[in-house]
């Protein structure tokens, strides 16, 4: 463990490498979100026996570009009842917390004297508190939705924000407890060490219950269908982002997809063995991307398959089934590891 001004990390790169890594993570986000967007629209189209977007560019490949250009050129509307500075701040909070979470996802172990002779770890940062980093910023992500909904000064936005508040606290506990089993088994909070300890068996096998709880809670945490009650369009227009237009709406939208990528990355590292896979060492990041891609397709598939839950069903499921199950799972794992 090496001490930096703010945190202990297991491996410190030179400043240049750190800057490169920060740029790479940000570029990755900017590139991957439009790709997922297109993938989602194409797949949803296929699931519903449509073609999906196919007008802009070959096979509709340029559709995300058209979407972004449309959002950028739209009017930035602010209702008269709104709090303008807070409406500007809320999407920024959402984007910030989403991108920061991506920093801890490991794409490979530390490489000594790799490319250009530099030593680097294939992750943003390997903090000693590991997965708690994701929870800390996930907790702050709530303020993006909440402030956005409250600052809009509209009833639909407010209802959406309130729903997201209740939903996020209800499922955050289960999400955390579902990962406790993995942390106990691996004996570490650091994602790279958790991946390293999975070289014999992926934790999805011994921690299958935890994996199922994690996936359900992850759908709720990312506001993805069937848990997209904060923006249930049939009931409350579009929830917390009703009054947002242009790129401010685009930021909320983008944050949702980055969160999806981050959750897929965490699931890959915690349960699917991260970079472990057959083949030479340089394939490690590819394996992580392949596994994350699988999760993202699952997210999209579920969206096309399941209808939205009713609000009381959501709460009853979270508190009466998921939370006790997650608690029992953590307890049983602790007992098994201790004996």
């Amino acid at each position, binding site marked *: 463990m090496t*001490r930096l*001004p703010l945190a*202990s990390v297991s491996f410190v790169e030179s400043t240049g490498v750190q800057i490169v890594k920060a740029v790479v993570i940000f570029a990755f986000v900017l590139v991957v979100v439009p790709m997922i967007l297109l993938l989602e629209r194409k797949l949803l189209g296929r699931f519903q026996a449509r073609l999906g977007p196919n007008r802009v560019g070959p096979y509709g490949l340029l559709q995300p570009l058209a979407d972004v250009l449309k959002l950028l050129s739209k009017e930035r509307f602010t209702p008269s009842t709104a709090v303008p500075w807070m409406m500007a701040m809320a999407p920024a909070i959402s984007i910030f917390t989403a991108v920061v979470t991506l920093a801890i996802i490991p794409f490979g172990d530390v490489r000594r004297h790799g490319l250009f002779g530099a030593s680097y770890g294939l992750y943003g940062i390997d903090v*000693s508190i590991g997965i708690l980093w994701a929870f*800390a910023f996930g907790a702050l992500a709530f303020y993006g939705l909440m402030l956005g909904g409250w600052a809009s000064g509209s009833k639909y936005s407010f209802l959406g924000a309130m729903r997201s*508040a209740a939903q996020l606290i209800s499922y955050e506990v289960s999400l955390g407890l579902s990962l406790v089993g993995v942390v106990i088994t691996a004996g570490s909070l650091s994602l790279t060490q958790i991946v390293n300890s999975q070289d014999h068996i992926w934790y999805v096998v011994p921690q299958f219950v935890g994996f199922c709880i994690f996936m359900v809670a992850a759908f709720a945490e990312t506001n993805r269908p069937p848990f997209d009650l904060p923006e249930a369009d049939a009931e409350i227009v579009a929830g917390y982002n009703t009054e947002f237009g242009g790129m401010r709406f685009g930021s909320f939208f983008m944050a949702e997809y980055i969160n999806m990528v981050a959750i897929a990355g965490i699931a890959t590292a915690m349960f699917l063995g991260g970079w472990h896979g057959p083949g030479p060492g340089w394939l490690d990041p590819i394996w992580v991307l392949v596994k994350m891609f699988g999760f993202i397709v699952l997210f999209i598939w579920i969206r096309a398959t399941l209808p939205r839950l009713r609000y009381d069903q959501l709460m009853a499921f979270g508190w009466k089934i998921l939370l006790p199950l997650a608690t029992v799972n953590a307890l049983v794992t602790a007992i098994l590891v201790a004996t």
Partner: protein
Amino acid sequence: MLLEQVLFFVAAAGAIGGALGVVLLRNPFFSVLALVAHLISLALLFLLLRAEFIAAAQLVVYAGAVMVLYVFVVAYVGGVEETVGGEGAIGRVGPVFAGALLVELCIAIIGSALPAIDSRGPHVAAGFGSPGAIGKLLLEKFLIPFEAASFLLLVAAVGAVVLARRRRGLEDSVG
């Protein structure tokens, strides 16, 4: 360590500004947000003190769970201008107690801070503040206070539910 100093003063200013905002802002919603800003600044101070786990717990528990409930309640009943205190015995005794508490805290803080101002500060051993070390302390050395505190919190939560039900007459409705 210039970076540490810059971060300390940013976090300290944020903590004090947030705390002042809680008291001075008229709109309860903004007060709660100021408290959130205060808590985030405290988390940054914890990071500077080598307590990463405490910092993360601060964000997850306080900013992420407790303050969410505050925001929840204030956003629902917000805008109601209620005068706090000024009624009966509590209104007269309250400021006295608050003043006494302030004096006591000042004595404690200044008393311990002034002698330490020229020193290098305590030596921080490796592994200090790590989740494992904190878990050991909580479950071995401080087991009884830890359990007592959790019991106290449980009593407080149950008590709040009981009081709320009695006052609003909720026992008649579906519960």
